[in-house]
């Protein structure tokens, strides 16, 4: 499924302003995984957010000086671009929730759209 990304919505370095493609079949036989770049629907599928999954259902997320910790273990994130020293206290994910962040983390945490997202809102994996 093709989607159009506005310039300020581009949060993943491999993406460009313009068109991107989503594989809607990617999670038919599997569940979203850590590191996947996914499309998150709004009221429908015409406009989507694109973010990377860092936390899986049931996990605890903590961000300390820009590093993401999952259940107390630091997460290796080679894809991150210019991380600022964000801090976010422990967040426990429910069984149908994922934690998503963009790769461009050079803004204040308040200016970045990150957080929990419900499984039913994830419509597929972003191809490019």
């Amino acid at each position: 499924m093709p989607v159009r990304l506005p310039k300020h919505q581009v949060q993943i370095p491999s993406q460009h302003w313009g068109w991107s493609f989503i594989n809607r079949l990617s999670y038919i036989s599997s569940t979203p995984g850590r590191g996947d770049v996914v499309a998150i629907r709004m009221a429908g599928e015409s406009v989507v957010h694109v973010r990377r999954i860092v936390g899986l259902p049931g996990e605890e997320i903590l961000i300390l000086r820009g590093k993401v910790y999952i259940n107390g273990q630091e997460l290796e994130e080679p894809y991150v671009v210019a991380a600022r020293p964000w801090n976010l206290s422990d967040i426990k994910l429910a069984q149908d929730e994922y934690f998503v962040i963009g790769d461009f983390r050079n803004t204040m945490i308040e200016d970045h759209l990150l957080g929990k997202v419900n499984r039913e809102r994830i419509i597929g994996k972003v191809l490019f």
Partner: protein
Amino acid sequence: MNLQQLKWSHWLLLAILLALLTKWFWPTPEAQIRRQLRDLAQHLQLDGKESPLNSAHNAQKLGEFFAPEVTAEIHIKDRPQYFMRKRSDVVDATLLLRRSLKYFQVEFIDTQVRLENDSRAQVTTTAKARFDNEDRYFDAIELEIIFVFEEGRWRIKDLKTVQAIAL
């Protein structure tokens, strides 16, 4: 085609025509709400600076889309939060928006209407907006709206933004 078949085809055409006319003159509540949203988007549109008088007139017209006791909570990241508790608050906020922008266009997409009863409906939609101050840019927010049938038409009673990604 014999005479009998010809008569039947006339009756069929007449029935289709009547159905279309009924739909046109007496739209279903869902169709009325969708039309309200389309009209609202049209009234919100702004292309070029308006005179203060026009801004006030247009904001007043826009107020008619809302119930007198409307509650609205607009929360968009990086922007000031708006809490409105009555129709006049909506008119004031609209006026402020119209005075501060040169270009504004909104479109309601992916709209789903769920009728709760004859006079109340829940609507979810994505409002896709284009603004212009210095640069023209695009943004989208998800909205949950409660429409009520009041004073002879469907009006917005509650409006709030929904966060797909939230802490």
